[in-house]
């Protein structure tokens, strides 16, 4: 079999596959953690297939795992999903296809596809970057979740420290956001709100309320911080 990519396409495809591989391992962790928090294998898989945005999926499972209500879990998770709306704004100028194709593409508008697409400069490579990342990442995210959920069903979550596994994943995801001053303020504000409110409101609500910390973005600062965060 002879299958060769053009020289300019190859690095795009290679980095999309490398990124997807890493995300697949993360999905494995999500699968294990989700069943640890009380989901069954099918629910974990359905979240990865239909919700398909990692941080929201994990946030919902954390709130449920600590005894929060469905409403509490939804609030924080949807707030996190809100940023994909901002990514969509950044990407939509590149997509001039039919409505049907745009509705399909919308499902794949997440952190990674946005980063990969906006890293390219010519329209053809942008499209290749978006779709290769979307397809590879979606496949491995779902495969990883299934394997993790099956594996996770076999062990006791508390004994293996899986609750802290979730926390550790958030820590790793948080670090890139601390590069900007606003990011650090928002993180400090969010942390403070979530801890201070904990004794007074139902479980899950402190996470949702921490969203108020985003108003530190009202500070008149360099607008380059936004562009940086999108890329």
């Amino acid at each position: 079999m002879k299958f060769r990519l053009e020289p300019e396409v190859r690095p795009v495809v290679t980095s999309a596959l490398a990124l997807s591989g890493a995300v697949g391992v993360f999905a494995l962790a999500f699968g294990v953690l989700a069943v640890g928090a009380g989901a069954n294998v099918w629910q974990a898989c359905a979240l990865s297939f239909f919700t398909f945005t990692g941080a929201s999926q994990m946030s919902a499972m954390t709130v449920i795992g600590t005894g929060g209500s469905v409403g509490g879990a939804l609030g924080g998770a949807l707030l996190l999903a809100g940023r994909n709306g901002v990514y969509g704004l950044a990407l939509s100028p590149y997509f001039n296809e039919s409505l049907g194709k745009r509705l399909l593409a919308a499902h794949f508008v997440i952190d990674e596809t946005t980063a990969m697409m906006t890293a390219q400069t010519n329209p053809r490579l942008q499209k290749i970057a978006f779709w290769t990342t979307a397809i590879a990442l979606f496949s491995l995210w779902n495969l990883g979740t299934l394997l993790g959920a099956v594996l996770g069903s076999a062990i006791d979550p508390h004994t293996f420290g899986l609750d802290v596994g979730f926390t550790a994943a958030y820590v790793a995801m948080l670090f890139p956001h601390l590069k900007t001053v606003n990011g650090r303020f928002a993180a400090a504000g969010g942390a403070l709100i979530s801890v201070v409110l904990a004794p007074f409101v139902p479980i899950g609500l402190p996470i949702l309320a921490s969203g108020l910390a985003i108003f530190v973005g009202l500070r008149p600062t360099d607008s380059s911080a936004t562009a940086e965060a999108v890329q």
Partner: protein
Amino acid sequence: MNMSWALVIWLSAGAYVFKMLGFVVVGSRKLPDVLSRCLMLIPAALLAALVFNSSFTSGQSYAIDERAIGLGVAIIAAWRKLPLIVVVILGAATTAFLRAL
């Protein structure tokens, strides 16, 4: 446990609506700078909240236990730029070890 299919369905529907809102409905119209600046701070605020809330509370009361040490190890690992899966394993393993003592 309160895990239910309702959560799966509502979260999936809501997440898709957000993805589609920016991408299809608003399209290339531009949001005010200050609004997108605030929206991009959501992950920083919520991820930090999840970290601290789940490490130092138990139900509606405060608690300092093995989780705090696991968190400390995870922070050092993430700060040293170790891969995500290594950060997860170190955090979980530290806590598991302390719980087994």
